[in-house]
């Protein structure tokens, strides 16, 4: 899925681009390639969805976005892909996946992590997202987090360091 060249680039930038006038040139110099090559590879990784987005990753807590709820719906299988793409596009949503149902205990197949400054704000966002995605009438619930025992971002592991 990733070429050696792509892996090397991701390893070089995943902790952050250098904040200098020509950041892609600085990365290219470190990798021994050209600035154009670095930018071409980044564009291709963005187009393929390996990189979801490129930009500032804010600290949720520092910006006051302290509440998060995992919203889950039971969406008919023939609609879930289309609905999922719409739900996943909202700015309040950090992650959105289709996952298996586990009946009878767990009837939900669409999962979205929704962020806000408060629980009422999260609930309001969930209602708005559901209305705009056309799933307001489907079974759903919101699971709020109470305690965080661990949190780490998605990282690519350097080969040989596992």
């Amino acid at each position, binding site marked *: 899925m990733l070429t050696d060249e792509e892996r090397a680039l991701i390893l070089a930038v995943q902790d952050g681009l250098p904040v200098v006038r020509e950041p*892609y040139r600085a990365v290219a110099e470190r990798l021994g390639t050209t600035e154009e090559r670095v930018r071409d590879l980044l564009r291709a990784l963005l187009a393929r969805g390996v990189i979801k987005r490129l930009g500032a990753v804010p600290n949720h807590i520092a910006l006051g976005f302290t509440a998060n709820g995992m919203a889950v719906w039971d969406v008919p299988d023939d609609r879930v892909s289309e609905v999922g793409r719409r739900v996943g596009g909202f*700015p309040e949503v950090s992650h959105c996946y289709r996952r298996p149902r586990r009946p009878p205990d767990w009837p939900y197949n669409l999962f979205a992590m929704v962020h806000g400054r408060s629980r009422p704000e999260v609930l309001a966002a969930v209602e708005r997202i559901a209305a705009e995605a056309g799933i307001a009438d489907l079974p759903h619930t919101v699971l709020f987090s109470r305690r965080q025992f661990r949190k780490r971002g*998605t990282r690519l592991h350097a080969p040989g360091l596992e």
Partner: protein
Amino acid sequence: MLSELDKNDRLLLNRIQSGFPVTPRPFLDVGRELGMTEDDVIARVRRLLETGVVNRLGPVLSPTAVGGERTLAAMSVPPERLEEVAALVNSFEAVSHNYEREHHYNLWFVLSAEEPGEVERALAAIERETGIAVMNLPALEEYFLGVRFQLPTG
């Protein structure tokens, strides 16, 4: 903190959470859009990083596209055992996220590993060591673009 951000900081943050330009002079291009100089944009981004408002300026990676195995798991843990079970879950290197949530299923955690079989072995070990069933919910499709926080700019 949020209250220490001036209007230009907020405009900048709202602009660069996605679509950071993949151009030779990205800070210059962002500055042109927002009416700031390149050096001012660079200084502001550095300050946002130093003060911890921004964790990093870089890519948000797709968990599925970077390879390896990954899943979301949930357990229904008696409240009096929650801390003990959460600590046991955290003892596995594959566990990247672990939250208490307000539900009958009250412990939710993400596992990811490069080595084939490591996630499954961790899930089996957690079940065996706690005597509590683990509900395994691997992703079947991924839809998200990543969270962007819009700040009021007054």
